[in-house]
């Protein structure tokens, strides 16, 4: 199929960007979306032009690197997948596809379609862990965990840190991402011990970094490639309130 691509080009974070139109021909329906961009890029390089920069790595929906806004939606039209898992059969011959980077204040553009998501790492560094050291740990089966809790924890832990939830939210809220981590640990006995301190630290960091408030529109859940549930946000809110009730510390 032949397509028109309207792609956001921006040389660096310091300059303004704009849309540039490109044509690609003979794209197979079996190709993935990123392979289609590879084809465009190889043709640009052959002409001596600069290829379009975008983040990607695993190309199978698990590393969370790919992050394209396609026709106005994070990770494109299909549900429950990342950009790299989308195939060109989702598009029609002759179509124009608009491709942009994530647009959210805490994720500044680095170049073209690449953004800086290090704020997510900072939130994890603030409390997204269990404070155990290497070694000296009792047997793994010494604390049985109800299967249902383990499954719910795994559902939350499946988050790939892509940032689509933030990009989808009109307030650029990171609640889905943060609540997924808070929930994973809150559901497990190993994580319970620090649960109250953790949620306060992570929320404080999230606010400090300029992520917006949650106004319950749930655009995040709809666009999340791992279909992380907004029930995690409710759980985090409960954790947060109960922690605030008894805590005297400021984070």
């Amino acid at each position: 199929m032949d397509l028109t691509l309207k792609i956001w080009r921006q040389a660096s974070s310091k300059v303004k960007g704009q849309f540039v139109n490109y044509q690609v021909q003979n794209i197979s329906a079996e190709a993935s979306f990123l392979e289609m961009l590879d084809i465009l890029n190889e043709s640009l390089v052959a002409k001596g032009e600069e290829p379009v920069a975008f983040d990607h790595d695993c190309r199978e929906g698990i590393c969370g690197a790919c992050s394209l806004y396609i026709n106005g939606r994070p990770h494109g039209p299909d549900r429950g997948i990342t950009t790299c898992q989308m195939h060109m059969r989702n598009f029609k011959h002759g179509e124009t596809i608009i491709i942009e980077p994530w647009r959210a204040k805490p994720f500044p553009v680095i170049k073209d379609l690449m953004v800086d998501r290090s704020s997510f790492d900072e939130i994890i560094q603030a409390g997204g862990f269990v404070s155990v050291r290497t070694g000296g740990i009792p047997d793994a089966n010494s604390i049985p965990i109800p299967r249902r809790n383990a499954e719910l924890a795994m559902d939350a832990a499946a988050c790939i840190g892509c940032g689509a939830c933030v990009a989808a939210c009109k307030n650029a809220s990171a609640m889905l991402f943060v609540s997924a981590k808070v929930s994973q640990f809150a559901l497990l006995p190993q994580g319970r011990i620090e649960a109250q301190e953790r949620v306060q630290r992570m929320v404080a960091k999230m606010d400090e970094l300029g992520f917006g408030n949650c106004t319950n529109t749930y655009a995040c859940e709809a666009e999340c490639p791992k279909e992380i549930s907004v029930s995690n946000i409710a759980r985090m809110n409960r954790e947060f309130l109960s922690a605030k009730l008894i805590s005297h510390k400021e984070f």
Partner: protein
Amino acid sequence: MTKLNPKIPNGQLDQKWTNYKAHQNLVNPSNKRRLDIIVVGTGLAGAAAAASFGELGFNVKVFGIHDSPRRAHSIAAQGGINAAKNYPNDGDSVFRLFYDTIKGGDYRAREANVFRLAEVSNSIIDQCVAQGVPFARDYGGLLDNRSFGGAQVSRTFYARGQTGQQLLLGAYSALSKEIGKKTVKMYTRRDLMDVVIVDGLARGIIVRNLITGEIERHSAHAVVLATGGYGNVFFLSTNAMSSNGSAIWKAYKKGAFFGNPCFTQIHPTCIPVHGEYQSKLTLMSESLRNDGRIWVPKKLEDAEKIRKGTLKAGNLKEEDRDYYLERRYPAFGNLVPRDVASRAAKERCDAGFGVGTTGLAVYLDFADSIKRLGKNVIESRYGNLFQMYEKIVDENPYENPMMIYPAVHYTMGGIWVDYELQTTIPGLFAAGEANFSDHGANRLGASALMQGLSDGYFVLPYTIQNYLANQIQIPTIKTDLPEFVQAEKETKDLIQKLLTINGKNTVDSYHRKLGLIMWDNVGMGRNKEGLTNAIKLIQELKVDFWKNVKVTGTNDQVNPELEKALRVADFIELGELMARDALSRQESCGGHFREEYQTPEGEALRDDKDFTFVSAWEYKGDNVEPEMHKEPLVFEFIEVKQRNYK
């Protein structure tokens, strides 16, 4: 004179690690603060090591090419991680895990290392559970296990089909905790350009900042490379796009020996190649072989019809199907080790029985299991994998058998290390897939995650101290030493050269060509003629590359073309070394199948008399033949046998 000393501790096999730890040198807490360690890589091995060093009180600097440590390629591992817990009470033990690993590796790994790996495997599971890794559990709330190829016990722990993700996020959380405490400093989006050696010791690295293009110098008292495997030499592989061999290749060029470069694992269950533009291959977890049966048509004419689309797999009668693994290997059936399963698929396809439009595919069929267990059981076990398959291939695997074909997956070869995971350069250590160590000529499923975490959590935190204990008098290493200046200059010259060739061929076009040469000659079947030819072709490709490659953009900005060019330049040289190693190993063992050395039934023929050694290659200069050293492998505690999965 060879510099190879594996430094295997004395004593009985099960006492070696205990003895080592009891007698090694340690660094006291106040000195730890004054010692700097550089870790390159934040996969399982790197993140685990860095977090553990930080906890011990060392000054740690960590580097990676990704924008976040959480995105290292370990994230993509699906199936699981082995440990000798014997929770299912099915006869497992540390010795059995050790034995299976040695045997699975076709007796080409070091006994003492592999035993230590099996010994610490249980602590890994304890550690991960304590970190909050949500492993699969049974209804009683205890940890669940499944079986994997090459083993007769169920010893694989898993977190749905995302085990690597969950283990890496565990290690990442430990690392983040230390970064938060400022014991560890993280440098993201940095590409290793060189290892700096001062007076024969590893003292630092040169990296390129992938955002600004700046070339930076970093110094330390010891350097750990945990940069993963080099399967992308083949262009198409299951590895992530940015996985590369450059870091270990630079170390090799600085004097670290390269161990068993030709040992490559070709994974039997991947989605077959479908087009020219394809950028990578997708693995379908090996766990599928627990319930899927592998077959091709028995008759050539049926295979032909299937390829043309005039016959459907489901319509082929039972007696017209050849379940070739069950036929050839009744004891292990569909669960034979990866190398055996891959070769058997190639053999059938080469003989004309392959399916799919290209004829390079075999069936992995769940119809029997669905009949026996019900669709929902299969769905609960493999739902996400089936969904992934359907998204890619656009076919429903509950109704039609999956099509699979082998693909490059893992490199057992890597930087040669001794028992302490130290390379031949003092102060330079290698961990995870980047080192050559524990898997011999073939890695068993679910053992790479185990090895990465073993190296990072439980081996390096000890062994590195044995080295650093002699460094406590050395103040912070200055980065204005002439060795740093020189290394930085060489890096800048190299980049300048690539940017100014301004030829007519894209970087990818060279990578694809190299991949084809490698796949055809240094892939699943190797022979003298093909390997000799491959060396020649690769040398020609190298000349062509340095004359005609086109690298767009400049150095002072994000430049993915330049990044790729730097990697492909190294892959070309590494590919040649792999071919050389394969040529010199005149036997078939594990993933290394030399067509000249096989039994009349087509099974691999090992030559223990002449080849029970690790080949360790020493760099001798650009376009000069490297020198091979041999580390003899001595088996004191087990009997070396012919591998038999029949």
